[in-house]
């Protein structure tokens, strides 16, 4: 128990609770307006997506372009249950169903395709994501291309809690023996196997955890943003998530968080440029990557301790 309350964990706990209280306060005081509230909601969903993909791509080194498919399953499970049962009950039942479906699907994809490497894996997973979407597009219960129009049942608190839980799971996972195994697969699969690590097993575990968390993101999206349709879950969505991950720094969870925040606000800021928006966004992506090729944080994590170190160093220097 004592060990759990070490300094770093305490800082993060404070940061989460403090962050929540602060955002809540600013929202109810109206200092964060409706637009920015929506931006924050989008960012939270993107954070969950990004860290779940980061676990697969950044930590385990498996290039997957099918993440939108898992999000799609999560969104539709929650959406259909919201329609059938309604309310938060329906929503949570939907999440559970989504997780079950995704776990099964992830296993079905992972076991044969994770033998593939690099771009071959990317294409196989992309194809898989598209297959999910096409199935959803052709089902009755999902209402086909028209999609589902849904009531908003999710609030900021639910979003925040899911985000924190997702972060905890992913971060704790990466800092355990299993996470180290995944990282070693990314670094050198042959050496990793020679060190006694069942690489297939850990790839599958990472893939399944990623898929499950992605399904939360889908559900939260459905419960928060009024409408879902298959057109939202094409491979371009997978690529959007990939952009967040790479931009933040592959393998860096705090990087993904910061990147989702930065890109979310850049996007929101660009809205006032009306139809120049996408042009500027494209240029911005190029520029950012050219100047920071390994992403905002590289593979490093943002650490309070290093911040303090830097801070105290500066102080010392100034004294």
């Amino acid at each position, binding site marked *: 128990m004592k060990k759990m309350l070490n300094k770093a964990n305490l800082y993060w706990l404070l940061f989460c609770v403090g962050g929540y209280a602060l955002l809540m306060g600013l929202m109810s005081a109206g200092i964060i307006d409706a637009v920015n509230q929506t931006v924050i909601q989008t960012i939270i969903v993107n954070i969950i997506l990004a860290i779940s993909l980061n676990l697969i*791509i950044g930590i385990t080194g498996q290039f997957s372009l099918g993440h939108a498919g898992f999000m799609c399953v999560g969104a539709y499970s929650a959406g259909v249950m919201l329609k059938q049962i309604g309310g938060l009950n329906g929503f949570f039942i939907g999440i559970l169903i989504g997780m079950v479906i995704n776990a099964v699907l992830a296993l079905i994809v992972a076991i*044969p395709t994770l033998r593939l490497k690099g771009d071959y894996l990317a294409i196989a997973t992309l194809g898989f994501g*598209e297959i999910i979407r096409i199935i959803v597009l052709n089902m009755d219960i999902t209402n086909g291309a028209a999609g589902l129009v849904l009531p908003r049942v999710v609030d900021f608190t639910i979003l925040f809690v899911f985000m924190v839980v997702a972060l905890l799971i992913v971060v704790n996972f990466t800092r355990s023996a299993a996470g180290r195994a995944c990282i070693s697969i990314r670094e050198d699969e042959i050496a990793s196997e020679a060190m006694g690590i069942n690489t297939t097993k850990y790839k599958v575990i990472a893939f399944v955890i990623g898929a499950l968390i992605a399904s939360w993101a889908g559900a939260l999206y459905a419960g928060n943003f009024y409408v879902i349709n298959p057109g939202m879950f094409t491979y371009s969505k997978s690529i959007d998530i990939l952009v967040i991950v790479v931009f933040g720094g592959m393998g860096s969870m705090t990087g993904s968080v910061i990147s989702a925040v930065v890109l979310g606000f850049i996007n929101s800021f660009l809205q006032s440029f009306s139809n120049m*928006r*996408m042009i500027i966004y*494209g240029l911005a992506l190029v520029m950012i990557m050219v100047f920071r090729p390994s992403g905002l944080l590289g593979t490093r994590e943002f650490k309070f301790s290093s911040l303090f170190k830097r801070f105290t160093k500066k102080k010392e220097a100034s004294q």
Partner: protein
Amino acid sequence: MTVFFQQLINGLSLGSIYALIALGYTMVYGIIKLINFAHGDIYMLGAYFGFLAITYLHVGFFPAILISMALCAILGVVIERIAYKPLRNATRIAALITAIGVSYFLEAGTQQVMGTSVRAFPQVLNNQVFNIAGLRITEQQIYIFVTTIVLMLILQFIVKKTKIGRAMRAVSTDSDAARLMGINVDATISITFAIGSALAGAAGVLVGIYYSSINPLMGMLPGIKAFIAAVFGGIGIIPGAMFGGFFIGICEAIVSGYGGSLFKDAVVYIILIVILVIKPAGLLGKNVKEKV
């Protein structure tokens, strides 16, 4: 049975288009291992360059295609210098993100400059229809098919048999060692991009003529299909890209020709996955286990 063969022809001509785009794509990939997501958009711009040349300069088919190829080559080189070169020592996935940025920029930029609407491509090639044994083949289909094969052969020749092709391959395996041989690595990569992009330009014009319709987002779908075709055939392998393109085209045609149009993409993906599981390096790829 006639219908089946007709569908085969339909598929082959659709596949030729995927193949045409995939050729340039796979070549660039083969040399610098970059997934050039903007390749489809260069193809789109190729179509627009051809369109503008025909509409405003009133040129015919061949000048139009040459103009388009030249402009696309320049564009490809410029993009490479600005967006990809600074990332040569970064991870491949970082370069992929810039490629996506370039793609957004080209798409939105073209929407801005040329308008968002579909343009009808001027018909500068006549299109005679041949009926052979009950099968319908158009002159344009033959054009596209033959162009694809010829370009594949030319590319293969350039990469495998010429000095510049050897330099390209040398750069792709070890750029520092290539430098020690006196190879100008930057120039070699630029030439690779120029050739790949010029091919995309040619594809753009041919497709414009074939379907008589172009729009700023026309590169998205074929771009991704070309990527799939390239992977399917064994990425970096030039004939592989062609076969991959043919395969996808024929698959789509047969599936939708026999009532499965709703699921045509799903079927293509399923076959793709199955084949990759059996042959993890693609159809023509050699499954070399890394030597340790």
